[in-house]
């Protein structure tokens, strides 16, 4: 098959994102430095809880180079609104849902370290930093609580919630689950703690705001995962029409959810631009990012698994405590409820499921989704519980899992949480993983490790994702006379390679080289509708919509071509960007039609627009086999092998999909072995830099053996499933179980994450001491 021929040779080759980025040609928020821009800096609460007794800003305001100081009073006078959650619940257990909005600047009381108290706007960063020092802030410190398990008994963070409970919610059949537990041959209980972690993309958050007095329009350049929702949030905070705000997102240096949320600093930059008439820029440093970014996870699961005498899973129940932080963030209520339950039971047939959650306030920054959004916790809890069950009951862990897998005959399988799993062949995947990971050779590898004084452990786990996110996708496909196809999507790339993947989808339909397709995202003036990126929705939602839209465009162009060539459309063949009258070499090209259209204002031939239609959910699934080596002398763990198989449906962009999986499992490895936001008893953050907050370096991860085991999703025109969160959902338990397998000879059953050398060494030492005392 030769290369497709393309008419309209004037078309230029698009520089792809990778080429631009390896040249240093990225355009990140801090790279935008318009002449005359002022810099904004934020004074942050030094205490986790307390009353502001003094906030004196006159000295700062009169410093040379300081253009404005903003306090809560200024914002109140301006009529700036607080940030409210977008996901209130109307189905809580007791009808109560308490979610006080998050003020842009603390409203007399500070509720977490790092909460914004005041802002200064100055000619440059150094002047702004000096001005912060000149603000006189006194806080009467109150007791703080950062441990969710201590929150109920602690002093109230809100008078309206004396027990610190924001809401209680449950799903599933509690009676049936309890009945199954009562009748079961075995019930295994375990508490699994999922610590607060930082998304920590390498590019910190930032914002550049401008205000045009003559038009009354605000523009905010800021990294995001979708400009449309952010436009609404900013307009609401500023109390202006949505049309008065334009949000522009250029290159985003990683996000993993943390840049979805509207933040106080963005509102402050907009207000400051309005007040000063100058562009105002704010970029977080890393310490600010750790103190004021929205963290993820933060759940404690008291879990129970019931099994019959043959090791079949009968019921799985979780009593969860979700640490919601000091405020209820944008979609946090959805994450700890629906997000947590959609994958409950994941790849296993379990008749009875029940999940109950208490969302509790603490004196930490508000939490919300982080890559996986409630699902990594639920999957990791069950996978951990299965290993504990196997150990307690003396069963083989892999066999126990295999015995309970959902089989292809059971599809479509409706789970106890109301999800209908769309496809997959889990037993085949398990068999392939057994071989790919060379499980047969594990005993030999373990012996080799032991000979070196190391304990080798194996973790073998399965996972399932229920993709979600917004379905407010509107895709546009436009053929430009100069030889380019422009695709617009309301999703937003933050490094995943959206533009390459969506270009591939459009190029396939239009039978053009991918280089001819340019994908545009990130300008709210060009997007009336667009739900943004989240829930691994690029493939299930956007790719399917772009595919439909490109087909629609081709249909319209065909009708126009028939008109131009004066034949019936059925007589036209299409290939390589050209309609040809069958059996002749007469024809007309797509780009020629666009040129005619441009001249005659005949849009339908060259523009199509479609909204998402169809099934929103897909269910990617997979399995990971992870081997670690533990040094019992130091507690240090090395991940030696990682073999994974994932069914993400049809793979449109294999390098991109591989990259999503490899990056996701590395974040999971980080969560398993070292990542946790740690606060002292007063709520002071102890992990406020990359020196203290451990994240995996190149030497901490193995070369990955990851492959695809695709089965098409019937829920998707293209057969695609989501991918972005799959690795971070599945990876945590695989590593955690591998480490616990290595710990088994020491009689250690369970250690809470993160499994740092200090904790593992202490666990081993404690068992040694017990043995000595006992002996």
């Amino acid at each position, binding site marked *: 098959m030769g290369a497709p021929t393309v008419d309209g040779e004037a078309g230029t080759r698009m520089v792809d994102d990778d080429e631009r980025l390896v040249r*240093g040609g*990225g355009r990140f928020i801090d790279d935008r430095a318009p002449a005359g821009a002022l810099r904004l800096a934020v004074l942050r609460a030094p205490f986790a809880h307390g009353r502001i007794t003094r906030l004196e800003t006159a000295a700062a305001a009169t410093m040379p180079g300081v253009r404005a100081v903003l306090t809560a009073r200024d914002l109140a006078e301006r009529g700036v609104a607080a940030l409210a959650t977008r996901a209130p619940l109307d189905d809580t257990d007791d009808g109560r849902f308490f979610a006080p909005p998050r003020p842009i600047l603390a409203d007399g009381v500070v509720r977490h370290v790092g909460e914004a108290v005041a802002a200064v706007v100055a000619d440059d960063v150094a002047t702004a930093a000096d001005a912060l020092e000149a603000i006189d802030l006194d806080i009467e410190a109150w007791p703080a609580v950062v441990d969710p398990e201590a929150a109920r008994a602690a002093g109230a963070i809100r008078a309206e919630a004396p027990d610190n409970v924001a809401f209680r919610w449950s799903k599933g059949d509690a009676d049936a689950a309890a009945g199954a537990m009562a009748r079961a041959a075995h019930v295994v209980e375990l508490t699994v703690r999922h610590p607060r972690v930082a998304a920590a993309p390498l*590019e910190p958050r930032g914002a550049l705001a401008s205000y045009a007095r003559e038009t009354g329009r605000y523009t905010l350049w800021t990294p995001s995962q979708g400009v449309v929702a952010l436009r609404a949030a900013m307009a609401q905070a500023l109390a202006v029409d949505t049309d008065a705000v334009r949000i522009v997102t250029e290159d*985003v240096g990683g996000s993993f959810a943390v840049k979805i949320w509207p933040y106080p600093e963005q509102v402050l930059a907009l207000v400051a631009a309005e007040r000063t008439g100058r562009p105002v820029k704010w970029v977080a440093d890393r310490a600010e990012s750790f103190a004021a970014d929205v963290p993820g996870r933060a759940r404690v699961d008291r879990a129970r698994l019931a099994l019959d005498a043959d090791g079949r899973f009968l019921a799985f129940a979780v009593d969860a405590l979700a640490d919601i932080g000091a405020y209820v963030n944008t979609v946090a209520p959805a994450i700890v409820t629906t997000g947590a339950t959609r994958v409950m039971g994941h790849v296993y047939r379990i008749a009875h499921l029940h999940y109950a959650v208490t969302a509790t306030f603490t004196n930490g920054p508000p939490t919300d989704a982080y890559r996986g959004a409630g699902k990594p916790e639920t999957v990791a809890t069950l996978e951990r519980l299965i290993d504990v069950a196997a150990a307690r009951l003396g069963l083989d862990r892999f066999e126990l899992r295999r015995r309970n897998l959902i089989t292809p005959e059971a599809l479509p399988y409706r789970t106890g949480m109301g999800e209908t799993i769309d496809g997959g062949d889990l037993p085949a995947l398990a068999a392939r993983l057994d071989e790919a990971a060379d499980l047969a050779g594990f005993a030999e590898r373990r012996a080799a490790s032991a000979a070196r004084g190391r304990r080798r452990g194996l973790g073998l786990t399965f996972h399932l994702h229920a993709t979600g996110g917004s379905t407010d996708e509107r895709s546009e496909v436009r053929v430009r006379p100069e030889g380019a196809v422009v695709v617009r999507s309301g999703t937003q790339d933050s490094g995943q390679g959206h533009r390459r993947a969506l270009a591939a989808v459009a190029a396939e339909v239009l039978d053009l080289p991918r280089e001819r397709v340019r994908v545009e995202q990130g300008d709210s003036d060009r997007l009336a509708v667009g739900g943004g990126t989240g829930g691994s929705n690029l493939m299930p939602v956007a790719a399917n919509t772009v595919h439909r839209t490109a087909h629609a465009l081709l249909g319209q162009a065909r009708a126009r071509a028939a008109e131009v060539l004066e034949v019936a459309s059925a007589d036209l063949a299409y290939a390589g960007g050209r309609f040809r009258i069958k059996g002749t070499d007469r024809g007309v090209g797509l780009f020629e039609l666009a040129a005619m259209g441009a001249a005659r204002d005949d849009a339908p031939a060259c523009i199509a627009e479609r909204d998402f239609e169809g099934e929103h959910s897909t269910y990617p699934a997979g399995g990971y086999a992870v081997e670690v080596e533990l040094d019992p002398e130091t507690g240090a763990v090395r991940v030696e092998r990682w073999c994974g198989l994932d069914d993400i449906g049809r793979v449109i962009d294999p390098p991109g999909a591989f990259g999503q999986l490899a*990056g996701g499992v590395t974040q999971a490895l980080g969560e398993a072995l070292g990542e946790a936001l740690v606060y002292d008893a007063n709520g002071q953050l102890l992990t406020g830099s990359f020196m203290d907050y451990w994240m995996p*370096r*190149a030497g901490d*991860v193995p070369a990955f053996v990851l492959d695809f085991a695709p089965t098409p999703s019937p829920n998707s025109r293209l057969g695609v499933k989501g991918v972005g969160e799959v690795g971070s959902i599945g990876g945590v338990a695989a590593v955690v179980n591998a480490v616990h397998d290595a710990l088994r000879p020491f009689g250690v059953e369970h250690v809470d994450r993160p499994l740092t050398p200090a904790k593992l060494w202490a666990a081993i030492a404690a068992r040694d001491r017990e043995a000595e005392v006992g002996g």
Partner: protein
Amino acid sequence: MAEVSFKVNGAPVTVEVEPRTLLVEALRRNLGLTGTHVGCDTSQCGCCVVHVDGASVKACAMLAVQAEGAEVTTIEGLARGDELHPMQQAFRDHHGLQCGFCTPGMIMSAVDLLQHNPSPSEPEIRDWLEGNICRCTGYHNIVKAIRACAEATSGHRAAAE
């Protein structure tokens, strides 16, 4: 204010900076070379790695005035016009990047690795990258790209000898 003169990507420059200005700030703000990034405050992340007199340096850990008389190379100075540097090409060919924020520092660091060790093993590559954090890729394709570049360039050297 202090006046500092040095060469950036082969061209002589003079910038006027406050003595406390970091080299990375001078490159980004005074010279508009925004390919060198800042990802942390503690010299951990490596997003700001440049070459000073041929050796990789974290430009956040050096004052601009210390660059007086030096030859500085940034990510923008690596390609020869349309032709990417072999390390840039390898990162591109092997998809050794996602969001691209750590990439310039990663590439500058990798180029320096091959100056020290033209055929590094995989553990040597991983060890060298200790000072460069990537949050997106899981490092797999970065390591692959560096190995491929080492193989390609040592192949060139072998052919030339």
